[in-house]
């Protein structure tokens, strides 16, 4: 990238700058007109100066005055219209109005053009910076903080956008104005003109010098603010450590120190700025001072007439503002130039990847090659410790090789080199004779898979993360309707103008062929297969059970699940499962649901009837009053209150039992006790109205099967059922969308898959009911061939920032599955299974090996335990950054040495 902001701007916006410049020049004519027309209106139109000699004057005369070349020679093309004074006034007024409108239109166009150009340049610059981040050498990310990169791309280049529009136009325009004024002064009196020029020169040389410290401070301010952003991100990243180690105040000290520094810089900046401003004002007033003094002297001594002095002063009046703005512009120029340099410097590290390596492939990516040859490879940590020491190794990309070695053997670094994550300091890595590091990224991305110990997941769905490695190029364009297509085309045109690529993220980027599928339709089995290889399918299945499906979008799936519900309920009739589930039944009170759930008898959509909102809802209240259930509930509430007071009195208020079991919070308990004391055993009728409402809401959370207070007998069940019916029948139209009623024949889009198939509640207190029903559900899904569909729903689960919504082991499994789904020619597994238990490690290894030998592809397994190397055809033994032995396990065992030692230790 250019060091100079100006050449950068000029290179990328030359045609636009020229157009704007032309517009500005053209605008001057109309500007001038809008200034001169009022004079004619007043002099001729109102005062009638031109009409003193004749009633009418010619208007719109079109003639060419050649008198300057041929005296007295005027070519007249059109004699004009004759107009009288009133007509003249009207016409000229409209001419004035027209000039004002045209003037305004020009201004608007120029500003729009400038704005668009600025924004376009800003977009280009931001894109280029981002593009560079993608091409940074991997090691560079150990040095830069991500928050600082974000601040630079987002905030620090922002002011550049505003400046770019004015970069060329402003100095030309203001310079022109200033020049005109100076020429006019020179024409009046050359001596005064020279004085003005000298004073201006002084002003223009001193002011920038005064502003220099301001710029230096500005640079410091920028850097310190960027570092602050970095520190804040660090705090967020390490917040657990801060709490665990009680280091919050140490962090506070650091931030306070930084803020203090920033304050000092900013305050210094203010001081310097106002000093510069002070001198600027003084110097700009020095010129009129000189004109008064010298001009006055000339006038008194008669060397110049008074009119000329006044003329000079008037001309000077137009000078300071363009000069001042010019100086401001210059200040802004230096400021953004510094900002630009500051940012650019951070974006050109050594060893950036050339853009060609990240080109987008035209078609399916070519194969990797057959033989990987490492010769004399040296990797050093910051030029000191040699992690790989003159390592030479040749391997077939289709062979299955394990690497074993101690912790300092450099085996993990070897893995990183093979994934191009670490660049060797010297030596070569070649694939069939070609430089491995010069292969395009799409070849590596498609044909070589790498999994390390840490897996990063993007905050997207499991599915998007799994398919991430298949998105090398847009495979099929997105289909748009005509109108959207036109909009998209314009959008892309603009992208190209700003130097951005016209890629469409809505296109289908998934390379199905790579996964072994022919299209979106048969991709699911491929995904399930990859999940199975890493034993993640069960977990995703469970996520699927907890996921939801919108029946409007997937009517086929909803119908199948409805069928599964029927099958499951047939099974529930069997003796083995009797009494484990209480199904939702319109005509029965469900003892395993709370009173509120029994009333609503459906899933709340939105907030209206959700949770505690139900108890406060006016419609619910009206239903309760109408059915007379309100008094029943109050009576139940009173009974619950008595029990709670009896049970929980004397318990300390912060005891977790309160939160877990009590219907009344610890804060409220004393009030309720007081209420009961005042009541002295009298019934609900004696309770004041205000307290009754509170009592009435208590039973809402009461579940007969769980709380066992024996509050709901058969008669009460009937009454609640009555209220349930009244609630459903009288539901006003505007609340219809707030609840999805339980209906055995309808799929419920708001409920989870599991709730949909179960259509009931697990009965409280049945030993192992959850496990047994879970197994039954899995069995039903298997019978109906729905297991993969459930996994498909689970794939939509969002993994959260950095995959934090998944447990660490599942994150890692997903990372491995992401590498396996693209069926790579060679997969490098760099101690990626270390976090699993020993058996899982071996099973995943065997799955990967079985899959690889089926496809005759390669595995490069860097073993976290030497014993993992057993089933491999070839084993590489490493020590001290070198290969010390290589061969089949039996050969190595026969030779003894380090191999036997490592194997014995495992």
């Amino acid at each position, binding site marked *: 990238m250019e060091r100079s902001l100006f050449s950068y701007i000029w290179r990328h916006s030359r045609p636009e700058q020229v157009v704007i410049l032309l517009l500005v020049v053209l605008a001057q004519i109309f500007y001038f007109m809008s200034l001169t027309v009022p004079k004619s209106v007043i002099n001729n139109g109102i005062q009638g100066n031109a009409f003193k000699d004749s009633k009418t004057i010619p208007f719109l005369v079109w003639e060419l005055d050649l008198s300057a070349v041929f005296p007295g020679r005027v070519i007249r093309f059109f004699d004009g219209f004759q107009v009288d004074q009133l007509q003249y006034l009207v016409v000229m007024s409209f001419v004035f109005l027209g000039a004002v409108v045209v003037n305004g239109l020009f201004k608007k166009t120029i500003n729009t053009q400038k704005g668009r150009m600025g924004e376009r340049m800003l977009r280009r610059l931001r894109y280029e910076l981002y593009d560079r981040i993608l091409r940074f050498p991997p090691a560079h990310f150990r040095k830069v903080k991500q928050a600082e990169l974000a601040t630079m791309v987002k905030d620090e280049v922002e002011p550049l956008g505003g400046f770019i529009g004015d970069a060329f136009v402003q100095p030309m325009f203001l310079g022109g104005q200033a020049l005109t004024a100076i020429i006019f002064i020179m024409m009046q009196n050359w001596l005064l003109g020279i004085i003005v020029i000298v004073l201006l020169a002084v002003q223009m040389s001193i002011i920038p010098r005064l502003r220099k410290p301001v710029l230096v401070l500005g640079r410091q301010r920028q850097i310190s603010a960027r570092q602050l952003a970095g520190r804040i991100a660090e705090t967020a990243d390490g917040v657990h450590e801060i709490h665990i180690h009680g280091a919050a105040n140490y962090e506070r000290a650091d931030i306070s120190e930084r803020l203090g520094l920033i304050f000092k810089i900013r305050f210094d900046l203010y001081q310097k700025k106002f000093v510069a401003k002070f001198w600027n004002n003084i110097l700009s007033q020095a010129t009129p001072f000189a004109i008064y003094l010298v001009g006055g002297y000339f006038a008194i001594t008669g060397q110049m007439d008074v009119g000329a002095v006044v003329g000079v002063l008037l001309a000077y009046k137009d000078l300071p503002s363009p000069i001042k703005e010019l100086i401001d512009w210059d200040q802004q120029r230096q400021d953004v130039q510094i900002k630009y340099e500051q940012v650019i410097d951070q974006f050109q590290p050594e060893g950036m990847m050339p853009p060609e390596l990240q080109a987008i492939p035209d078609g399916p990516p070519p194969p990797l090659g057959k033989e990987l040859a490492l010769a004399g490879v040296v990797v050093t940590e910051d030029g000191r410790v040699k992690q790989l020491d003159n390592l030479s190794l040749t391997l077939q990309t289709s062979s299955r090789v394990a690497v074993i070695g101690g912790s300092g053997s450099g085996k993990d670094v070897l893995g990183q080199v093979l994934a191009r994550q670490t660049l060797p300091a010297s030596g070569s890595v070649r694939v069939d004779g070609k430089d491995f590091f010069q292969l395009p990224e799409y070849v590596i991305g498609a044909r070589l898979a790498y999994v390390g110990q840490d897996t990063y997941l993007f905050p997207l769905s499991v599915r998007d993360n799994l398919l991430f490695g298949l998105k090398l190029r847009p495979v099929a364009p997105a289909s748009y309707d005509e109108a959207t297509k036109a909009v998209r085309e314009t959008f892309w045109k603009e992208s190209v103008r700003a130097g951005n690529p016209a890629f469409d993220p809505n296109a289908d980027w998934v390379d199905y062929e790579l996964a072994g599928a022919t299209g979106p339709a048969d991709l699911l089995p491929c995904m399930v297969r990859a999940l199975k290889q890493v034993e993640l399918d069960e977990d995703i299945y469970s996520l699927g059970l907890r996921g939801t499906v919108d029946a409007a979008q997937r009517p086929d799936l909803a119908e199948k699940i409805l069928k599964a519900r029927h099958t499951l309920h047939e099974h529930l009739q069997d003796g083995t499962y009797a009494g484990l589930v209480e199904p939702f039944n319109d005509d029965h009170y469900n003892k395993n649901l709370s009173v509120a759930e029994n009333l609503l008898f459906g899933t709340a959509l939105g907030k209206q009837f959700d949770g505690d909102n139900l108890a406060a809802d006016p419609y619910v209240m009206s239903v309760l009053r109408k059915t007379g259930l309100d008094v029943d509930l109050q009576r139940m509430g009173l009974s619950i209150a008595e029990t709670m007071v009896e*049970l929980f*009195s004397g318990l300390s208020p912060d005891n977790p039992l309160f939160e877990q079991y009590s219907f009344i919070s610890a804060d409220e308990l004393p009030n309720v006790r007081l209420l009961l004391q005042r009541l002295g055993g009298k019934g609900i009728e004696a309770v004041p109205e205000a307290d009754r409402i509170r009592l009435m809401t208590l039973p809402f959370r009461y579940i007969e099967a769980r709380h066992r*207070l024996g509050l709901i007998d058969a008669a009460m069940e009937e009454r609640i059922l009555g209220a349930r019916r009244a609630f459903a029948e009288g539901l006003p139209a505007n609340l219809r969308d707030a609840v999805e009623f339980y209906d055995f024949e309808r799929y419920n889009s708001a409920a989870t898959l599991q709730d949909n198939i179960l259509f009931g509640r697990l009965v409280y207190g049945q030993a192992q009911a959850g496990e047994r029903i879970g197994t039954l559900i899995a069995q039903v899904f298997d019978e109906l061939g729905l297991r993969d569909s459930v996994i498909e729903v689970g794939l939509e689960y969002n993994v959260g920032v950095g995959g934090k919504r998944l447990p660490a082991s599942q994150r890692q499994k997903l990372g491995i599955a992401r590498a396996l789904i693209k069926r790579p020619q060679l997969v490098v597994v760099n101690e990626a299974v270390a976090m699993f238990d020993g058996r899982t490690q071996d099973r995943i290894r065997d799955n990967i090996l079985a899959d690889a030998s089926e496809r005759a592809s390669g595995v490069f397994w860097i073993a976290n335990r030497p014993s993992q190397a057993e089933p491999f055809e070839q084993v590489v033994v490493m020590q001290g950054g070198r290969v010390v032995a290589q061969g089949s396990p039996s050969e190595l065992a026969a030779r003894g040495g380090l191999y036997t030692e490592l194997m014995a230790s495992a």
Partner: protein
Amino acid sequence: MNLNEEVELLKGVPIFSKVEQARLKLLAFTSERVNFGVGQEVCHQGDPGDTMYVILGGTADVLIDTPSGQISVAEMKRNSFFGEIAILCDVPRTATIKAKEPLATLKITKDMFYRLVAEFPEMAIEIMRELAHRLEDTNQKLRAATRAA
């Protein structure tokens, strides 16, 4: 069976016999009711135990592993309880308990029990007194036995 009946059964457990009724009610309320189907195991011999069960209904077999296989040594019915020592100290289960008929139990976990004891120390004193009585009782029997020998 409702809460008050459960409390009555809890009173029959010697270590709880002297504990205040309200406390036992809280213990019952916060404890889970667990039902077992015929043939389901409540606990297995040798497994670490931290839960006590009070049988609210049904019958269960008490099974002991012997070299010749599992043999039934006793039967438990309503009002029986087991595992009361397990909530005081960690001991492995000394027998397997299997439901012979559909079995209803009240499951009292160590955590819940400790939480209540921490909250109401007088409960601990009542339990200590009961244990001391038992110890004295055992000592007397031991003395009588040694004298007889």
